């Protein structure tokens, strides 16, 4: 069978070149990136995730947040991301050091979240956004429990809910552990430090 080998060998070579160039190169170089020491705070950068935030990134992945939210600020040379104050420097591979999986995101149906932790007022605001539909984002009501108030209202009960989202008299809305973890993760999203390969930039 005369031409079998050239086609198969050629396809294998072509595929292998991309496989080595993308998959293996990424693994051998980016896969070995480590944190860098930070003299100012006597710790390392990027900052490690708390246990709760680490659990939260799995909720973020499972709920498919990355289909609508990117976590990539692109350099000022090609995009207006920095001018738009999505971040004060571009996002680089090292920023995903503690992310598993890396939630770099595909689309901006919702806003970029690379620095959401810097924009969010407090945890209560995050919970309100997740619980009630006020924007283009669907409600994640199922991550919360509506329960009767026994004695005093819980300290973590959601406040300021509107319309049909506000619980009936004598009831309160409290986050499940998943919702608490997700909020902790979202609040941890801050790229406000310099990295050797990505110093902080100023908006033009």
């Amino acid at each position: 069978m005369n031409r079998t080998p050239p086609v198969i060998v050629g396809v294998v070579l072509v595929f292998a070149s991309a496989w080595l160039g993308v998959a293996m190169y990424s693994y051998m170089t980016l896969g070995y990136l480590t944190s860098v020491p930070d003299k100012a705070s006597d710790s390392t950068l990027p900052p490690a995730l708390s246990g709760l935030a680490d659990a939260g990134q799995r909720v973020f992945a499972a709920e498919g947040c990355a289909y609508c939210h990117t976590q990539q600020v692109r350099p000022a040379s090609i995009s207006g991301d920095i001018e738009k104050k999505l971040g004060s420097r571009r996002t680089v591979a090292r920023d995903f050091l503690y992310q598993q999986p890396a939630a770099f995101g595909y689309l901006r149906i919702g806003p970029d979240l690379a620095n959401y932790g810097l924009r969010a007022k407090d945890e209560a605001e995050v919970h309100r956004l997740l619980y009630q539909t006020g924007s283009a984002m669907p409600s994640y009501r199922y991550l919360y429990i509506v329960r009767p108030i026994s004695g005093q209202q819980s300290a973590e009960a959601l406040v300021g809910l509107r319309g049909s989202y506000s619980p009936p008299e004598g009831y309160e809305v409290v986050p499940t552990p998943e919702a608490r973890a997700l909020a902790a993760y979202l609040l941890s999203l801050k790229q406000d430090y310099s990295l050797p390969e990505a110093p902080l930039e100023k908006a033009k």
Partner: protein
Amino acid sequence: MSLGSSDTVENSGRWPEGWTDPLPRLLLWFSASAATWLVVGLALLIVAGVQVVNPAFLGGISFLTYGRLVPAGINALVYGWGSLAAVATILYLLSRLGGVTMPSGRLAYCALGAWNLALLLGLCAILAIGGNGLLLLELPPFANVTILLAYVAMAIWGYALFRGRRIPGVFASSWYLVAALLCFPWLVVTGNVLLVWLPIPGPAQAPVAAWFAGGMLNLWLAPVSLAAIFYIVPQVLGRRLAAYNLSQLGFWSFMLFAAWCGMGRMVGGPVPAWMASMGFVTSFLMMIPVLIAGVNVFGVLKGTSEWTLPLRHAAAGIGAFAGTYLLAAILAFPPVAGIFNFTDIAVAVGLLGLGGFVTLSLGGLIQFVLPQFERRDSLAEKLGSWHLWLTIIGVGGAVVCLVLGGILQGFAQSDPGIVFSHSVDYVMPFRFLALLGLLIFLAGAICLFLRVHRALVRHLITPP
């Protein structure tokens, strides 16, 4: 050069006496599954699309939230519709182009059953507990392993058909089929091992994930779709491809650039600069195989008056192929990517590739084979032609709306003076119209579903 003198091959009676050819029946069963997944996947994506327009729609129900419907729908389309149709196309075309067949389809039917079951359970798992946020890797490991094993069982037959061919020479279609046959398992194993089963550290994941997701179209579904087009056109017209010698250049340039062009989505992203440049350059160079394929196919089609249904499918398929890669190349150009990379234009590229190019080409091959089960059934022909036109109108309309909306969205999201929620308001009318396009596309998919299932039922009631 030992290329075949013509792409038109007459195979009847080529296999040993006493063998009945199981492949048309196999293709019928595979098409029935694939068409079902096409309808299921589109229905899931349309529910998700309604939620984009109206976030309160089916709100607060865990298994019907946008973030779970989208991966379930995309996986149903890629692993259900596209991949099953592609596997059937590979086996059928390698048999036709080689003048050989398989002694029995038993293994393939078992593999089809296992594949369907694994995919069904996998999609239920995504809806019930969520995915993992990595495009096209969301199916749970048991489902991906089963699909891979089922694939291997059928790929062995594919390779045997290729090695055992009795017609000398290798046709343009065969190169693409063999390439896809090799790329699918390599891609799926790489993606799953490196990102899900033994995940590499976060910083290395973005390039691998982007390359994998791009590869599922560029290195798996696209080559099979091209093979279907390059088979249908000469077969229907009884003529050679216009520039047959160019075909080799077309094939090798396609493989070379397709292997890299998935990185075009990462321009400006957290990947090494050279990788993003490779993505942009190869996306741009994809215009070479696109031009060659266009010259080849339209050179033959020029002036033809025999516009049969499969031929219309092939012509529309090659148009969608050109449109997909042209749009992807423009989107990967760094200044353009900086504004539009994350807008609805990226959705339009995926829709035109998967819904237009792959659906029209593989659907064309299915409709090419179906008539032998139908015995001049005028309703079946009508359903087939509705499928074609509804798909063209639905996908075409949705793509135009998404591109127009995406242009507004990109400018609005880059303008420091416009808050994010306003950029959503601008694009909403276009998303609504694109949703109508998807509904038309779904109607077309239902026509294909009905045509294939009618043929299947008729075949089961009155076997030949």
